[in-house]
């Protein structure tokens, strides 16, 4: 979480515009700040009681001065989001560690063994919790274990309540770290979801504007153009392509599917192939698969569309139907082209042509699915692609 100066960030969130979710992290820090102040005061009190028995009282006074001063410094740092760095938490940890391991000299071995309380008393607890809040489970656990073990080692004891006390530290700091990890994850997920919703809302707004204007005119050009001779037909074709492209962009509900690794909705993804020559129908909605498999399936479908253009003959049309069948997503892909007989199909398979071996069948098999093809002369080619969802 160390950050370059001048770009205030904390916990991955923008500190310039505070939001309610950032307050949740804030409250974690407030707990740490006040725990530390109270534990410093507590240490002051306890040490005052045992002052006459301390081996080097003036050294202990110095230690207490450092504890109080550092508590104020780190408290100040923790108040500001841009200053909450993991580095500060580790420095804090180092100071607490020195206080613990210096205790036998400062207090005297005899006193330390009889009290089983280090020079900082319970103050080092705050450092372990600090690490947990700033870092998370791992940092909290490490900090707690090291400080707890050090306290146990400088004042070895076989008195069970004292051992349990030192062992409680890593448990507490570890669980607090775990909680902070969970909190950060929830906030990150919600931020991503909010960003996605905002992007979709904006697309929705654009979609309305384009639908009411440009799309209507394009559809009209497409319809009327065909009647105006070859030049008009060319315009109609262009309008048709643009209309389909525009429409699929507007209907695309997969925001940044290629940038993130979030699951992709198959129907929305495949509907983008809708065009003058391809009709996409879907009975399934909400068919989510992980981004990698969605991409692979999309590539296989692209291969099939390219095949229609290459092999099905002029004017062939293709239809795609996306269905859910139990735990499988099924994509039917059919064209009304020239088709082929069984012997041609076998020959194509052996020659690895038309994606029958590699780019379609191989891809689907690698995904744990299957691809089957049937065809008859004059009756087009039909594919059935299956992948588990």
């Amino acid at each position, binding site marked *: 979480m160390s950050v370059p100066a001048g770009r205030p960030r904390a916990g991955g969130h923008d500190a310039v515009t505070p939001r309610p979710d950032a307050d949740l992290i804030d409250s974690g820090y407030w707990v740490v700040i006040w725990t530390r102040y109270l534990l410093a005061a507590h240490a002051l009190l306890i040490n005052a009681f045992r002052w006459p028995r301390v081996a080097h009282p003036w050294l202990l006074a110095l230690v207490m001065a450092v504890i109080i001063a550092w508590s104020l410094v780190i408290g100040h740092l923790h108040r500001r989001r841009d200053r909450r760095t993991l580095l500060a938490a580790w420095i804090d940890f180092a100071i607490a560690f020195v206080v613990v391991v210096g205790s036998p000299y400062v207090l005297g071995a005899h006193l330390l063994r009889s009290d089983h309380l280090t020079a900082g008393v319970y103050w080092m607890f705050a450092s372990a919790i600090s690490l947990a809040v700033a870092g998370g489970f791992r940092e909290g656990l490490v900090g707690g274990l090291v400080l707890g073990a050090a306290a146990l080692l400088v004042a070895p004891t076989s008195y069970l309540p004292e051992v349990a006390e030192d062992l409680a530290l890593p448990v507490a700091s570890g669980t607090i770290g775990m909680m902070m990890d969970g909190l950060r994850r929830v906030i990150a997920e919600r931020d991503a979801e909010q960003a996605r919703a905002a992007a979709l809302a904006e697309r929705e707004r654009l979609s309305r504007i384009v*639908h*009411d204007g440009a*799309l*209507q*005119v394009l*559809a*009209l050009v*497409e*319809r*009327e153009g*065909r*009647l105006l001779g070859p030049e008009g037909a060319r315009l109609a074709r262009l309008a*048709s392509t643009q*209309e*389909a492209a525009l*429409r699929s962009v507007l*209907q695309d509900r997969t925001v940044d599917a290629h940038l993130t690794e979030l699951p992709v909705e198959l129907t929305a993804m495949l*509907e983008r192939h*809708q065009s003058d020559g391809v*009709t*996409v*129908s*879907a*009975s*399934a*909605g909400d068919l989510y698969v992980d981004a990698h498999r969605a991409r692979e399936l999309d590539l296989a479908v692209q291969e099939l569309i390219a095949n229609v253009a290459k092999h099905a003959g002029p004017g062939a*049309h*293709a*239809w795609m*139907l*996306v*269905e*859910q069948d139990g735990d499988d997503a099924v994509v*039917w892909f*059919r064209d*009304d082209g020239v088709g082929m007989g069984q012997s041609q199909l076998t020959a194509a398979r052996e020659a690895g042509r038309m994606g029958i071996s590699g780019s379609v069948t191989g891809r689907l098999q690698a995904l744990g699915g299957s691809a089957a093809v049937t065809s008859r002369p004059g009756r087009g080619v*039909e594919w059935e692609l299956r992948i588990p969802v």
Partner: protein
Amino acid sequence: MDELSRRRVMLVDDHPIWLEALTRDLEAEGFEVVAVARSGDECLRRLRATRPDVVVMDLKIPEPDGATCTEIIMREFPETHVLVMSASGERDDVIRAIRAGARGYLVKSASKAELLYGVRRTAEGDAVFTPGLAGMVLGEFRRMVARTEQDDDAPVLTAREIDVLRRVAKGMAYREIADELYVSHRTVQNHVQNVLRKLQLHNRVELTRYAIEQGFSDLEA
């Protein structure tokens, strides 16, 4: 129904150029465009005044939207034949209109010939079942079954109906389907009509049940 008596058409769309073009085309085909409307409000007002036989309805119009208008029309004038059109992809609205009783669905990018054919078929009382609609209806039945696992009145499609619907969704013409299944063209058409009837009947059952549950049992009639 005598074909000649179903020639009075109303067009609902919020785009004037589109309305003009469609009016021209339909009149050239011998239809009489008795009203046009650019919003849901206009649609309902003019419909009650002119009582057309056929309504060509764009789903995306100013409030109330096309699906809601279709619901109201089918309640007030159940003998009206409604053909819905949309820019495609508005699955929920399309299904809502079909459940309410619309007889078919076309995407707005359909060619002029497809459009005129669709209106003619609607006027004659046939279902205009495009591949896109077949896919949506298949999905709707699957969702209904999943939703009402214990509910015995949820309509179920026969294996043959699913087969026919799936072939329609894959772009096969009725004649091709008839050939492959060794049945007549008419049989295929009947299967498709049956599917729509089941969907619409279930819609009425649900509406009635809802009305009773809400205590408005007088709506039942």
